[in-house]
């Protein structure tokens, strides 16, 4: 019992949880900035840049805005971080230990956990008592409601295809036997539909309305400084790891047990990420109204098609 508890704690704090995800996430956020810089004909930041940023923020003064709610203001970033960490732990464990990891229904819990970082932004923005932060928070909320529907629909595809499996581990072993879902028609459609949702989950252009620098000056995070800001930045970096990983595991066959398939899995992850980064650099920000309409219109339709295709078995 205690041994199990320690293992769980280790998994949560070190591998594949907090520490590991944080490091990988920060490296990926470096990749994001570097690729962005290259696209823009710049040199870009040095490799350790995201680490310096976080350490620096931790050492800065923390200012709680007058009139804001202290508890909510300081608690919000922790909620987000906890969500991202737990999600990373569950996904990582399942990906590494295959069928053994995970439990029945964890995919549903994951869907909830992945919402937490966005909720944290909404909470933090609302607690800041700044008109620009409230605009940011309300945009985040609208966006969340927009992309969450197609996102969940897409998640139905693997569940239907596997005949009702609700655990990551089972989905993985199913894919190991029958080939990844992304190889089927419904899987491909699902992947296409989920890509914009991923973009929005990561709050990257064209769906970064909540943090739009030029419109609302950093939006929901405008009042944050020092350590809480560092936690938000860290959470965002961790999501760069967690969210694409989730898709790779659920839809695209995961990592497998052999070295070759693991490398392939990493390749898939990086490919997904680079695609996201390129999308971000070749598109302007859309209006929140358009974004919501986009998610509820074509994206949801596409997700529905994927579900129907899965139902008829292609």
């Amino acid at each position, binding site marked *: 019992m205690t041994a199990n508890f320690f293992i769980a704690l280790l998994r949560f704090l070190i591998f594949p949880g907090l520490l590991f995800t944080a490091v990988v996430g920060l490296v990926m956020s470096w990749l994001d900035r570097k690729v962005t810089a290259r696209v823009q*004909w710049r040199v870009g930041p040095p490799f350790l840049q995201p680490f310096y940023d976080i350490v620096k923020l931790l050492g800065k003064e923390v200012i709680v805005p007058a009139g804001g709610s202290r508890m909510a203001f300081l608690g919000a970033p922790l909620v987000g971080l906890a969500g991202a960490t737990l999600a990373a732990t569950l996904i990582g464990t399942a990906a590494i230990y295959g069928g053994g990891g995970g439990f029945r229904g964890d995919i549903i819990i994951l869907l909830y956990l992945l919402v937490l970082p966005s909720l944290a932004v909404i909470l933090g923005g609302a607690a800041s008592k700044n008109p620009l932060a409230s*605009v940011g928070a309300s945009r985040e909320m609208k966006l969340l409601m927009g992309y969450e529907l197609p996102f969940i629909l897409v998640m139905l595809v693997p569940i239907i295809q596997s005949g009702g499996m609700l655990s990551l581990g089972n989905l993985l072993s199913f894919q190991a036997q029958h080939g990844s879902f992304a190889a089927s028609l419904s899987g491909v459609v699902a992947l296409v539909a989920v890509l914009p949702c991923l973009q929005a989950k990561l709050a990257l252009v064209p769906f970064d309305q909540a943090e739009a620098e030029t419109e609302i000056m950093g939006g929901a995070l405008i009042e944050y400084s020092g350590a809480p800001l560092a936690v938000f930045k860290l959470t965002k970096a961790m999501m760069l790891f967690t969210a694409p990983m989730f898709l790779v595991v659920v839809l695209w066959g995961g990592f497998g047990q052999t070295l070759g398939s693991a490398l392939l899995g990493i390749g898939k992850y990086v490919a997904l990420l680079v695609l996201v980064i390129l999308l971000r650099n070749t598109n302007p920000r859309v209006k929140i109204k358009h974004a919501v309409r986009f998610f509820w219109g074509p994206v949801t339709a596409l997700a529905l098609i994927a579900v129907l295709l899965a139902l008829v078995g292609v």
Partner: protein
Amino acid sequence: MTTIVPIGPFHPLLEEPELFRLHVDGETVVDIEVEIGWNHRGIEKICETKTFDQVPFVVERICGICSACHPTAYVQAVEDLADIEVPERALYIRSVITELERLHSHLLWLGLAGHFLGYNTVFMWAWKYREPVLDICEELTGNRNNYAMLKVGGVRRDLDESLFPSVLERMDDLDKHLNMLVGAVTDDPVLHARLKGVGILTPEAARAYGALGPTVRASGIPIDVRRDHPYAAYDLVDWDVISVDSCDVYGRAVVRLLECLESVKIIRRCLDQMRPGEIDSGVKEIPPGEGIGHAEAPRGETFHYVRSDGTNRPIRHKARAPTYMNLPTCRATTVGESITDATIILASVDPCYSCTERMGVYDASTGQKALDGKQLIKLSQEKTRQLREEMGE
């Protein structure tokens, strides 16, 4: 319920301080107030303390990005006052400098507009293409901005002919890049969705507000001082006034881009047609009288008025910059739009606050000037004293 959302006064990347108070209902703008004055430096008063020959340096610093147009308008006002003939070579040089300025100003705007849309790639690319223009400015005049080229009766410095081939070469490059940018803007469906039909300024409204420059040329009214009251060498070379009638932000972007191409054309022709000769008519003194001068700045018509009493300083100097006319159009263009669009609409007139900051204090109820210059000075000194006290001196 309406909330007030402030934009500014220190807003990232609006390069200057200004404060817009957007009254919004949800995300829709229902009213807008503009507060300026963050940049007021009392330039007209400063000009009255400088000699005629020193004033160009001051008006150059009215606004960094119009630092050739303000002096041009000023020297033309003085030349009008004193009936001075300007040598032809100087006219060409004036055109070259003002067009180089228009080029880098429009590219700057394009970059900022891209940034406002969250399209940082456009921002970086436009500014990358802007660099060679600044290089050319530096080679020809000695500084990247604030060129110190204008002088009553001519120009201060001659252009070095040996640099022309390399300048022309870079103009060819720029031409290519500009055409690429024009293509990128006109082909991008997302940009169309974001910019078309946004921030409509009808021709009637444009007339009523007295809008100027690209703002009004995008509403289908082709006015341009360069053609309507030719100055410098604009009547000696061949070029077109660009105007479109889409009346929206998209139109304003297109007008600016196409104007860049025209500028390239003008610079090429000027360098081509320029002949060696005098650059200064050697003005000795300015007689009493008054004169006006206009110039088409990148943002529209700049207007200067100078009165002299025969001494070596202007007794009155008045400057009116285009943004002063363009800014109020925000009432017509932003109300009813969403706040997402507000920034790009506000930016689409390419507001330049440092230009606009000429003021008197008016009493709103009577429209009378409530305070004159002397009182303002008094007030200012009073305030300085207070500030000092507050900071414990």
